[in-house]
């Protein structure tokens, strides 16, 4: 059928701004929040959210990355993946509210892996999940707390998130 653009640059910015507001609203401020992006594009989104939230709240919101490769349950079914870097902000995660940030939520298996990864680093008081695109087809009892866009899709369709920092352009496309 071809490729169709579902979010443009302005849509992505609006979605991230709204999610950032929602996170602050539900947490009643930014105190104790740590944003952790899941590589590769989740990290970029987390960094953008940190900028937006810092602007709103007037204090810097710590941001880092959490690699989940070594915790995946599907390693033996794919060519060998190279792990990405994990960078935890200086204050750690103990007793904080960690907001996991990823670009697409699909089966939920990356998020399951990220919960295991987080456990080996420390014990947050709460973990929340922010997602740019939720395309359904969950295989595990996992749901996002903050969603940029719900995108009903067929299982065999492919959703691509491109971000300026990595791909030179901001857009979300669906390919069928």
């Amino acid at each position: 059928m071809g490729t169709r653009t579902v979010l443009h640059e302005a849509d992505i910015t609006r979605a991230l701004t709204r999610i950032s507001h929602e996170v602050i609203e539900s947490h009643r401020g930014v105190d104790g929040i740590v944003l952790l992006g899941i590589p590769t594009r989740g990290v970029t989104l987390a960094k953008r959210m940190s900028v937006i939230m810092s602007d709103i709240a007037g204090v810097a919101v710590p941001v880092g990355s959490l690699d989940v490769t070594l915790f995946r349950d599907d390693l033996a079914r794919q060519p060998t993946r190279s792990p990405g870097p994990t960078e935890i902000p200086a204050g750690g995660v103990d007793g904080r509210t960690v907001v996991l940030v990823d670009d697409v939520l699909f089966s939920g298996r990356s998020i399951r892996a990220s919960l295991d990864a987080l456990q080996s680093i420390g014990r947050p008081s709460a973990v929340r999940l922010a997602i740019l695109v939720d395309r359904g087809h969950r295989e595990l009892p996992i749901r996002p707390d903050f969603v940029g866009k719900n995108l009903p899709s067929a299982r065999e369709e492919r959703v691509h998130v491109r971000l300026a920092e990595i791909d030179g352009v901001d857009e979300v496309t669906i390919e069928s």
Partner: protein
Amino acid sequence: MRHLLDTQSLSREDALRILDVAEDMSDTQSREIKKLPTLRGKTVVNLFFEDSTRTRISFEAAAKRLSADVINFAAKGSSVSKGESLQDTAQTLQAIGADAVVVRHGASGAPRTLATSGWISAGVVNAGDGTHEHPTQALLDAFTIRKRTFGADSRGRDLAGIRVTVVGDVLHSRVARSNVWLLHTLGAEVTLVAPPTLLPQNVSMWPVTVEYDLDRAIAAAPDALMMLRIQSERMHAAYFPNEREYSRRWGLDPERLAQLPGATMVMHPGPMNRGLEISAAAADSPRSTVLEQVANGVAVRMAVLYLLLAGERPGDEREDLS
């Protein structure tokens, strides 16, 4: 990657991939919980026909940190002392269900025989074979040099322009051979310093500069000075008059240590003969990377086991992804 048998045939791309994954593995070792679930359900056999402390412990720690099951096999006290052949031992391991075999053997080429014979389907890691190679040692040495030189900025970098001087018993050293090939692949400049009797005859074919005078080599201000162990157990002839003479001419004594320029690191693959090739002052100085090498060894071996075992393997039966 199917096996890791040597560094001579290791491409620059594969070497950098191992070193970069080792960076990630190294990061996980500073966490509250060091154990990763990555290789759960895999079995790693340590097959050691020669004595080893640090290499075996290092491989065992690496496999356990990745949640693999580890079976340690030492030739002493096994059926090998009753005359069992390498083939029968290998087929026994196959029947047990080994996914990877880490092998150390006194005969050069034994790991390759194991990998190419068809006796086993497991991945083979060479943990030292005769006087041939010891690839994970060279990888951890390269990792250590890179880490000391570039710090947190190490990922993705090679060792272009870095000058490494390797001193001592090159003739019997598989560590030296593996290091020469790997360092050359990564762009480093290697100088060998040894008495002529302890250099192999074909050294002119290697991508190295040969020097016989340690003081001249030190005056050239290398970035890393790697002292090799004098392997008395492999020396069946007189290669130098006596230990005192060797130590005076090719040992890193406190006087030579003082001549080293500011940033030069002192490396030793261990086990050290203190007072022979390296003085206690040098081994315990802040320049010494000996303990870093041991710690980095675990991370590098985790990376090798990960790259060998984690992905799908050719020939694996594959179920539907969903």
